[in-house]
């Protein structure tokens, strides 16, 4: 058997480069005495961009490493996705880390290492590889969430996240053992083959395994009722890490869910479809309703991101080729929008030290560019036309309704209107409330301005020309349902 295995290490080159980049960042931080620590984020971002360009060499190629993971268009899509996200997060962290945190070298190294975990979550076609990649991402996030170690909230959020995360991992592993016990394999293809026939001899264990896998992964993407850690971790984490949590950790979870459920559990669709549909409905409703009562922008975005997870879970419930490409499109639009919002929030926090919603008063006068970009991002999150959120949500809801989940779509549309209300509350503070006496215009760093403009253009680009991205998403998910 071992002679037939394809152990082609060149397939893993981008991740080896990322590990090397992390080591380089640590070494620069450690050994080069007069090295300006403020350069580290740019080194990280440039390195990530270089590896991103390198990974484009695998476009339209298809291969696998010992059956453990595939390098196909799906993997390439997420390689680009996660590295781009990490590069943006590294850039927006620059000022924040310098002002508020210590140990910048380890911060950026962990950021880079976590992308390896995220990429392999999307790439793996075997449960143990998927699990250990998930742990790699989670470990990095546990540390990064508690990085502001002299702040109580950061410690509290980090500890809650870690304890509940370990618990969820244990449940996930137990579920995996059930799946292994009933199918006799941990490879997605073999599991699908084992479940293709009659499953009545072990259907209870299969169901329990599916429930546990869903509970474990539901925790990682913060689906209700496994979301309890989210608001605390989001609020406690340093702001750029909150952005990273809302982007990479969720998308990586969905990348794994999508490949796992389409690759392994498709034959037992009836067993899990209703569970995911129920989770999606609960997540949408609770996330959006609780968001209405929040006063802190981080907690608001935490609950709104829980609501977004509900929309994404709909795509898993109504799993098909159309919904999965719509899911990829929606996640891309969501992450670009969220990064745009967080870039503005981080810049505002750096300038004023405020992260309460009432602290955004006068933003329109003091930093007009940030105010406009944040408004655009919030409109996009709520799904207004012209912005990315509208079209991606439209595609997703339509695909889900086509699969026969009209009731889920109705809930999703109603909840989108609810979300518009709490986003408008923030926008009101920005534009309607006047700044207090003596508050002047604030200088926004050129890098942040550039990044904000680029991300806002991205929001409009996805909203106005979604076809381009949708084609890419369709190409990426084609092999999942081959």
């Amino acid at each position: 058997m071992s002679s037939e295995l394809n152990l082609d290490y060149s397939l893993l080159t981008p991740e080896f480069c990322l590990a090397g980049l992390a080591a380089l960042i640590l070494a620069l931080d450690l050994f080069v005495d007069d090295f300006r620590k403020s350069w580290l984020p740019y080194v990280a971002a440039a390195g990530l961009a270089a590896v991103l360009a390198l990974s484009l060499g695998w476009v339209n190629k298809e291969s696998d490493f010992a059956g453990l993971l595939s390098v196909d268009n799906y993997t390439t899509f997420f390689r680009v996705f996660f590295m781009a996200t990490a590069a943006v997060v590294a850039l927006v962290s620059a000022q924040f880390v310098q002002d508020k945190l210590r140990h910048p070298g380890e911060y950026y190294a962990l950021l880079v290492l976590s992308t390896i975990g995220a990429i392999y979550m999307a790439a793996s076609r075997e449960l143990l590889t998927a699990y250990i990649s998930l742990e790699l991402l989670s470990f990095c996030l546990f540390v990064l969430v508690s990085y502001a170690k002299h702040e109580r909230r950061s410690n509290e959020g980090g500890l809650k996240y870690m304890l509940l995360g370990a618990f969820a991992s244990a449940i996930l592993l137990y579920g995996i053992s059930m799946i292994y016990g009933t199918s006799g394999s941990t490879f997605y293809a073999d599991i699908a083959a084992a479940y293709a026939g009659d499953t009545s001899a072990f259907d209870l264990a299969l169901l329990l395994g599916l429930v546990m896998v869903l509970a474990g992964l539901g925790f990682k993407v913060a689906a209700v009722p496994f979301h309890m850690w989210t608001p605390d971790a989001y609020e406690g984490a340093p702001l750029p890490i909150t952005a990273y949590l809302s982007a990479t950790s969720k998308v990586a979870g969905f990348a794994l869910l999508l490949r796992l459920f389409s690759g392994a559990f498709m034959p037992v669709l009836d067993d899990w479809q209703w569970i995911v549909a129920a989770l999606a409905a609960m997540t949408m409703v609770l996330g959006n309703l609780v968001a209405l009562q929040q006063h802190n922008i981080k907690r608001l975005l935490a609950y709104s991101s829980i609501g977004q997870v509900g929309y994404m879970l709909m795509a898993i419930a109504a799993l098909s080729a159309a919904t999965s490409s719509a899911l990829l499109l929606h996640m891309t639009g969501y992450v670009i929008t969220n990064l745009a919002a967080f870039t503005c929030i981080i810049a505002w926090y750096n300038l004023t030290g405020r992260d309460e919603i009432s602290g955004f008063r006068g933003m329109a006068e003091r930093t007009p560019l940030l105010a406009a970009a944040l408004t655009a991002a919030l409109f996009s999150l709520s799904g207004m036309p012209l912005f990315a959120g509208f079209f991606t949500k439209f595609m997703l809801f339509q695909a889900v309704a086509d699969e026969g989940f009209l009731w889920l779509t109705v809930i999703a549309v109603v909840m989108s209107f609810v979300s518009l209300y709490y986003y408008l509350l923030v926008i009101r503070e920005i534009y309607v409330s006047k700044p207090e006496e003596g508050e002047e215009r604030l200088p926004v760093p050129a890098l942040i301005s550039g990044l904000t403009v680029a991300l806002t253009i991205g929001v409009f680009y996805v909203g106005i020309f979604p076809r381009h991205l949708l084609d890419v998403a369709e190409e990426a998910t084609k092999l999942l349902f081959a």
Partner: protein
Amino acid sequence: MIAFWTLAALAVTSAAMIIVVRNLLHAVLFLILSFVGIAGLYITMSADFVAVAQVLIYAGAISVLMIFAVMLTPRSDRDNAGNMLQAPALVLSGLVITAVSMVAVETDWRLADRVAFESTATEIGDALVSPFVLPFEIASVVLVVAMIGAIVLVRED
């Protein structure tokens, strides 16, 4: 069979005692006992390498670490305190236990159709370097991350 039931009873009883006893140090000692019971179960399944690893790592290293942690914490901050959630927790764990044991009994588990390994250590070693080399390597990155994280968070500055 007798060995199985004895070891299973040992593992389960000591696991229950972990929760029941009030003194945290006693709980850790019961935890070690439970680990040993599980190691015994591994031996009955002829997983000798896993059994040895279980004794060395869990019953040995991790328990010592836990005892140190308990001893270094002030007494008032440790020990199991009672609170309002005891009754719901009991109900919930009762439900979980019932569900899992029902599943375990009802299911027609798939049995491995191969002869026993001669020595599991070599088999595990082969599997780790040939098909499962990638998770093995990712695990090493996980350990690096854990180490960096521990140092960053604990270092005084």
